[in-house]
């Protein structure tokens, strides 16, 4: 039996939480009485307010499709510059309030990432500028157009150079507009730049296949997955799509032959993807090429191909050999991915995949991925041109190089030499502040658009709200400046009619085709048979060995600049939902920090929160330390996307402003690529302590054996019962019951969570926040243990103390367990409530009546799962007690006039002093029931979906009516029905309504 632990301090024998260590509240009796008296008098005063007169304003002309009180759904497209998702947007009374995945898409198949879920809040971001700006002064579109067109004309006449710098653009119509713009202004060049670049991956494919493309990866078709420093479930390329596919190979209950894909992960940091791996090997950052060479050689030897010269590196050779063996067994059914932006590494990966015959099966170049089109070399050339004063006009759209470019001073000084610079950012960000004009582009939920994430996959984006501010699409500006008086929508329609409609089978007239695409959100074409073939005269091995002769694995410490699942490259850093979404591995919110291995921390005497100075070359930052078990000892890590100075423009309410440190300057340029692994790092402790806010109620698993259950596939196959040991005799359980059962009806809601499928991405957490109006409480409150999330993804480390060679913290495994209210049938919270505010429903729900609760918190104390959340303040709107929530909780959307628009009108906004918790999304259940009742038909299985279930990219959550014997949930609920199913802490006899499917790793050893 492995040992489960939640925090390093637990391994060191600490059993109490930080909160307890801080001591109790120090309030004297007199203070208490004073506050008590004041409280009562203010409550009396507050209660004596006159009832305000409320008004009801009906529409003047009600749009026929709109019915107040009912939601409308629109298909649209989410793309934040990094990840794509086909989405459905829920609008109420004309305002978007929730993003969900669009199941019609064959790419994302109804999944959306946490960032996609949170993007709806960015629409209501107060920092967005409300009109066009000339420098720091507001201007009008007419004035801006007039001067810009004039300048463009003069520049055109004198033959000046125009450059359009954008992030990756997925929109085919936008690409067309840029092309047409370049025809009108012939000296125009378009440069694509990504903050986190994948240029090497595309270049490698160009070298071998002659097409500058990223293949489509099919993780669902792979039996063996080898990932080298690639967080493909969290951040890499298209994580939602990959997670969907990956989960296919992990869901044992869907695989009658009890097989699973096998996942090897080699990495220096401990990524979320690594946590899901069956075997995880450590490799020092910078040594991945050595590892890939070794892996290549193993495979080349077996397949009779030329071998590369060996390179020594710091990695686990045995595990690589094992991986090679498995890969060879699964030729054509495996995937090797590498997350480095290094051409040699990518060539090696490509070559390994070729040797394994993976191209054409798990990797598909016929339908290449059009994400991450950034070209690092082109960006460098642009800056050189700008420095030489050759660029007269620069348009910047969808990227923020003054923040993300490593040599930002160089970029900024070059930018100042440009005659006319125009930014299309929606706020005056780091780059826009140096531009002559900032012409705000609308948020994607208020604008038209299209996308082409893969060659044969189109997607439409339609507005779901009238633009909130005086914004204009980037595309429309370009059209206008070409002299075309056409709005973008009509251009888009014409473009689709002329360029995309002909590709369809034309069974529908265009008008209906357009409406159908709008309705579906996506339009997919059949993929052609022919695949790009490798170029004939390319000797990859020679090219790689030439590169290898130059390659020397770095000595000393190396640093990985990684992206967090929540914040990514920092584009959406001003989004408080994302800032408060805990990192899956560290569980820290609102900050980035230096990840160090336990051995290094021990050697230097650092603890969580010790402040260190990190130095690469002449660049330094100060940041707190986070000691990460399982991290490679010479590897350090720190997340990009933090420490933004102008994430909110000039606005005071800068969510991202004082969180974390900015490490983009550390990004290294090597061989023309932006590289995110840096060597020659110096780190020193400078003393001091910084409190990192961590969502981890208790840093201990209290040695319980029935919280997490897991085992190897080998063990599961031989004896599943041994893995799923009952903690209490079921017979005893049945016969001995202190309480009488609750009255029941024809519905008993229940949930099953597959821990094999849960990858820990946190999409459910943001979905829950959006659905249930959960407040954002900020760093301080979270540090006090007052987080408000109704669902949390507990991260448990597990290790065996029986292996003396390896200290426990060196290579632990990680299990994720989504924890939410278990809706116990014998709920310990219910019988301690003095006012019956929490009661049981006949449908099995543990109900919480906010208006009845008066805040004793007995229930939370008595909850064995610690899922109840207390409103310590009126996070939303009240300032009765002299506390202005706008000042104290400025990041809570509900405290803000604009942010309040995101609230779900079907769910109460809770006041201070009330307890809240997961309701199983009772508003959705009631809505589903009402729909069935109104149609006079029985409730269908899967019709009522909770928000977490709906948003889960891997469909790890099954929910339904247990009384319906044919329901999915009835098949897997509890150990009697399914061998992997168990209840958390069953022995306390609370009879939860949530069962978990125990985690099985595809490992050979027969250990429990």
């Amino acid at each position, binding site marked *: 039996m492995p040992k489960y632990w939640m925090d390093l301090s637990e391994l060191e024998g600490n059993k109490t939480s930080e909160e307890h260590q801080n001591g109790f509240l120090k309030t004297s009796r007199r203070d208490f009485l004073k506050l008590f008296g004041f409280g009562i008098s203010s409550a009396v005063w507050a209660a004596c307010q006159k009832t305000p007169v409320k*008004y009801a304003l009906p529409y*003047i002309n009600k749009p026929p499709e709109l019915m107040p009180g009912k939601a409308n759904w629109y298909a649209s497209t989410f793309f934040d510059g990094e990840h794509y998702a086909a989405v459905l947007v829920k609008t109420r009374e004309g305002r978007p309030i929730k993003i969900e995945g669009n199941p019609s898409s064959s790419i994302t198949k109804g999944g959306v990432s946490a960032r996609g879920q949170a993007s709806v809040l960015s629409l209501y971001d107060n920092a967005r500028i409300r009109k066009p700006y000339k420098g720091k002064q507001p201007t009008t579109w007419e004035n801006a157009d007039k001067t810009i067109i004039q300048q463009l004309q003069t520049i055109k006449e004198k033959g000046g150079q125009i450059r359009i710098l954008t992030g990756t653009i997925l929109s085919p119509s936008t690409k067309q507009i840029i092309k047409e713009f370049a025809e009108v202004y012939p000296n125009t060049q378009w440069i694509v730049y990504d903050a986190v670049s994948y240029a090497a991956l595309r270049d490698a494919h160009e070298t071998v296949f002659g097409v500058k493309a990223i293949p489509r990866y099919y993780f669902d078709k792979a039996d063996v997955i080898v990932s080298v420093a690639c967080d493909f479930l969290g951040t890499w390329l298209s994580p939602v799509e990959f997670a969907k596919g990956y989960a296919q190979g992990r869901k044992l209950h869907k695989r009658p032959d009890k097989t699973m894909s096998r996942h090897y992960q080699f990495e220096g940091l401990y990524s979320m993807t690594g946590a899901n791996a069956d075997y995880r090997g450590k490799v020092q950052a910078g040594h991945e090429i050595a590892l890939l060479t070794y892996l290549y050689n193993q495979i080349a030897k077996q397949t009779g191909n030329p071998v590369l010269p060996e390179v020594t590196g710091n990695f686990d050779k045995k595990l690589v050999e094992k991986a090679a063996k498995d890969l060879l067994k699964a030729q054509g059914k495996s995937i090797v991915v590498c997350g480095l932006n290094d051409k040699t590494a990518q060539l090696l990966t490509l070559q390994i995949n070729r040797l394994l015959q993976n191209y054409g099966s798990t990797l598909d170049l016929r339908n290449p991925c059009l994400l991450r089109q950034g070209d690092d070399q082109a960006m460098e050339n642009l800056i050189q041109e700008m420095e030489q004063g050759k660029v007269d006009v620069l348009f910047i759209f969808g990227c923020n190089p003054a923040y993300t470019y490593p040599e930002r001073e160089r970029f900024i000084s070059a930018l100042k030499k440009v005659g006319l610079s125009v930014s299309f950012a929606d706020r005056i960000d780091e780059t826009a502040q140096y531009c002559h004009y900032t012409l705000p582009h609308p948020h994607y939920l208020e604008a038209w658009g299209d996308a082409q994430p893969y060659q044969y996959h189109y997607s439409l984006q339609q507005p779901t709200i009238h633009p909130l501010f005086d914004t204009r699409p980037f595309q429309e500006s370009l059209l206008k400046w070409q002299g075309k008086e056409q709005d973008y929508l009509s251009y888009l329609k014409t473009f689709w009619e002329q360029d995309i409609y002909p590709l369809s089978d034309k069974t529908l007239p265009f008008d209906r085709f357009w409406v159908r695409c709008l309705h579906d959100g996506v339009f997919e074409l059949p993929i052609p048979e022919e695949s790009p073939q490798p170029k004939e005269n390319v000797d990859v091995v020679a090219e790689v060995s030439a590169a290898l002769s130059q390659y020397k694995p770095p000595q000393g410490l190396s640093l990985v600049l990684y992206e967090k699942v929540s914040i990514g490259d920092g584009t959406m850093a001003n989004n408080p939902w994302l800032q408060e979404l805990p990192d899956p591995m560290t569980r820290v919110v609102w900050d980035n920090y230096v990840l160090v291995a336990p051995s290094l921390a021990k050697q230097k005497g650092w603890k969580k929160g010790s402040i260190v100075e990190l130095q690469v070359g002449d660049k330094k930052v100060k940041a707190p330390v986070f000691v990460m078990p399982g991290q490679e000892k010479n590897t350090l890590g720190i997340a990009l996307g933090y420490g933004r100075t102008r994430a909110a423009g000039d606005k005071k309410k800068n969510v991202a402003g004082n969180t974390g440190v900015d490490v983009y300057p550390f990004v290294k340029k090597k061989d023309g690529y932006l590289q995110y692994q840096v060597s020659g790092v110096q780190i020193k402790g400078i003393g001091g302590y910084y409190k990192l806010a961590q969502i981890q109620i208790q840093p201990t698993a209290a040695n319980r054996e029935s919280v997490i259950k897991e085992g190897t596939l080998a063990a599961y196959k031989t004896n599943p019962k041994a893995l799923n040991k009952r903690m209490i005799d079921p017979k005893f359980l049945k016969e001995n019951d202190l309480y009488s059962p609750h009255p029941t009806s024809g519905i008993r809601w229940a949930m099953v969570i597959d821990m094999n499928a849960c990858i820990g991405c946190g999409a459910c957490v943001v979905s829950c926040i959006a659905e249930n109006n959960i407040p954002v409480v900020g760093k301080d409150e979270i540090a006090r243990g007052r987080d408000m999330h109704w669902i949390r993804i507990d991260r448990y480390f597990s290790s065996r103390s029986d292996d003396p060679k390896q200290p426990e913290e060196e290579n632990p495994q990680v299990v994720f367990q989504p924890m939410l209210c278990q809706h116990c049938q014998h709920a310990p919270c219910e019988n301690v409530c003095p006012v019956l505010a929490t009661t049981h429903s006949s449908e099995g729900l543990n*109900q919480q009546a*906010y208006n009845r609760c008066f805040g004793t918190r007995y229930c939370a104390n008595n909850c064995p799962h610690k899922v109840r959340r207390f409103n310590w303040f009126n996070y939303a709107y009240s300032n009765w007690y002299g506390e202005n929530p706008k000042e104290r909780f400025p990041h809570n959307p509900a405290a803000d006039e604009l942010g309040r628009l995101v609230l779900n009108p079907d769910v*109460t906004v809770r006041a201070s002093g009330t307890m809240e918790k997961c309701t199983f999304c009772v508003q959705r259940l009631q809505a589903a029931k009402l729909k069935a009742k109104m149609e006079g038909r029985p409730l269908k299985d899967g019709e009522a979906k909770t928000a977490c279930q709906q948003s889960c990219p891997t469909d790890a959550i099954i929910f339904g009516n247990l009384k319906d014997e044919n329901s999915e949930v009835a098949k897997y609920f509890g150990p009697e029905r399914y061998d992997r199913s168990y209840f958390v802490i069953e022995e306390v006899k609370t009879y939860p309504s949530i069962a978990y499917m125990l985690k099985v790793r595809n490992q050979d050893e027969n250990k429990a």
Partner: protein
Amino acid sequence: MPGIMNIGVIKRSCFLTFLSIVIVWAVDVKEGEQLFKTNCTACHRIERKLIGPALKGVHERWDNMEEEMIAFIKNSQKYMKAGRPKSQYAQQLFEKFNRTVMQNFEHLSDDQIRSILAYIKEASKQLEAQAAAAAPEKKEEEKAPTTTELYRSVNFALWVIIIGIFVTLLLIFALANVARAKKEGEEVTKALIKQSVKEAFTNPYFIGIVTVVVVSACSVAVVKKARSVGLHKGYQPVQPIAFSHKLHAGELQISCQYCHVGVERSKMATIPSLNICMNCHKYVQEGPKYGKKEIAKIYKAIGFDPENMRYIEGYEQKPIEWVRIHNLPDFVYFSHAQHVKVGLDGAKDPETLRQTCAKCHGPVWEMEEVYQYSDLSMGWCVNCHRTTKVDVNKSDYYRIIHKDYLNSEEPVTVETLGGLECARCHY
């Protein structure tokens, strides 16, 4: 003797109350109402100003000088110039209402005018009572005393009885004291009686009973008052347009759903958008009561030119700001669709729907201005859920999910199916 004096006071006050009731009802309010409706409503309303001032509180404004009022009503212009006690006030009033001359009513007798005035007084009282969130029990004859009055008189009687009991008790104890003294051979003197009464006051039984009764009466009053806090039964705010449900839903028999389109489909019944008003009012440009005045407000909001029967282009439209009457707290989820479509099989035909709506909203078709009919308290909701029966056989949904109740002997109510559980309405 203090005891006897007490009784005297009570007697007197009783008599006075009775007298006042008799006096009030001596004047024929009914006749007054009739007269008022035929002669005055063209220009006056009790509750609000129309062409002339609102008549509520007119007696106070005229310092209860009925003779002066009668003279004024008969010929206002003459009165103003006559230099009578309120002539100056009459002049001010004339100026205030744009020098609109009030019609002469010399054909009415003094008694007739008196009864009109009595009706106005009565109606103002009723209005005040309604405004004070009292219950306008419209089911009863309008002419009968209102519930508030009844309540008040019952309350008064109760207090009289209670005080009566106290006095009787006091007398009994005093007499007992006297009797005891007599038994013990003392002579019945004035001093002895005085002494006995004094002792009766300090009798622990007497003090005990008085305390219990007073405390419980006060508690009942407090609880009653506290329960009504936040409830706005009878709330009847003045709306921006004097829209009459009595006319539309009552006389014209327009179905509720014609305007409140969401009632069967959505959580909200919805207040009709102006385009729904315009379906009819594009053509109906004049109402029976206010002429063009109120309907013109719709045109002003939506930008319609009634003369040329067309919408004004580029008009800046403004929504009508109706005052919300029914305000459920934020923590209550109420769905009209659930109650109307599912629960009460609402809109089979307009009449059924109307009766369905009336269960909570009252006889809206009789309301000139809508007021909150039910108190919308949780107790009120729960009582209905307890008593409303559900036909489990009515659809497949119920037949399958609630199959256990298909052959139930007991009546199946909303409560049986979980309709009293918290999370049905609170989430």
